């Protein structure tokens, strides 16, 4: 698992790549943690771009739930975008659409969160 980031205005894109399983879920949690404090009302929004994530088990879903529990009370907005087929099935089975919005594309996710970020993303 590797995590890369990029920013479009007030939206931070987090891009996990590879696989998240019980062996490396803590590594994923540690990699995400520094970005949670600024995810709050009036602060950053987060999008997990899942286009390069091949596999996620319940250990990775647990980290996403922790993200929700962490930023929710502060009014932070988080969305998931562009999951690969099996990852999308896993999110659907576990009803994550009731935890985070799930968008078919990163562009749609950004547009739903921030017009400024959408404009910035369109220029990339």
């Amino acid at each position, binding site marked *: 698992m590797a995590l890369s980031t990029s920013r479009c205005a007030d939206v931070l894109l987090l891009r996990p790549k590879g696989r998240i*399983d*019980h*062996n490396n879920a803590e590594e994923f949690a540690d990699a995400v943690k520094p970005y949670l404090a600024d995810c709050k009302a009036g602060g950053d929004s987060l999008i997990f771009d899942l286009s390069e994530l*091949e*596999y996620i*088990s*319940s*250990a990775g*879903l*647990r980290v996403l*739930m*922790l993200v*929700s*529990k962490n930023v*929710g009370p502060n009014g932070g907005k988080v969305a998931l975008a562009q999951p690969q*087929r*099996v990852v999308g*099935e*896993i999110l659907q*089975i*576990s*009803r994550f659409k*009731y*935890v985070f919005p799930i968008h078919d594309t990163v562009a749609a996710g950004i547009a739903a969160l921030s017009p400024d970020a959408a404009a910035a993303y369109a220029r990339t």
Partner: protein
Amino acid sequence: MADFPARLDELTAVLAFVERRSGELGTSRDVALRAALIAEELFVNCLRHGLAPERSRVRIELQCVDGELELGFEDEGLAFDPFTRPLADAPHLRPPHERPIGGLGVVLVDSFALRRDYRRLDARNCVRIWLPAGTA
């Protein structure tokens, strides 16, 4: 068939075996990933509940029969049927603000399975899962 020490640091080897064997059986990459997920959740479940005794091993086999991929998983722990939890207790069915952070492993296994079977045989927990072996 392959067997592995019942230790979390064997998970990578377990997943590699399941995906490689699925490929050998001619399933698609997506089917191999679903099978790997099932194997991971069963493997971790048997470790997490402390049911696998020290130095015990788990046994995993896969075969394709009539368009279905059959995954067999056996461990040497105390008798434990992972599918006995009432559906009403499933974490994903609770309102978002009440959802616990974990507990989705068996939900995922159950949802990907066409059928499943649990037996206690010769002091082993024997789980069999069948999933579609199609190309998608």
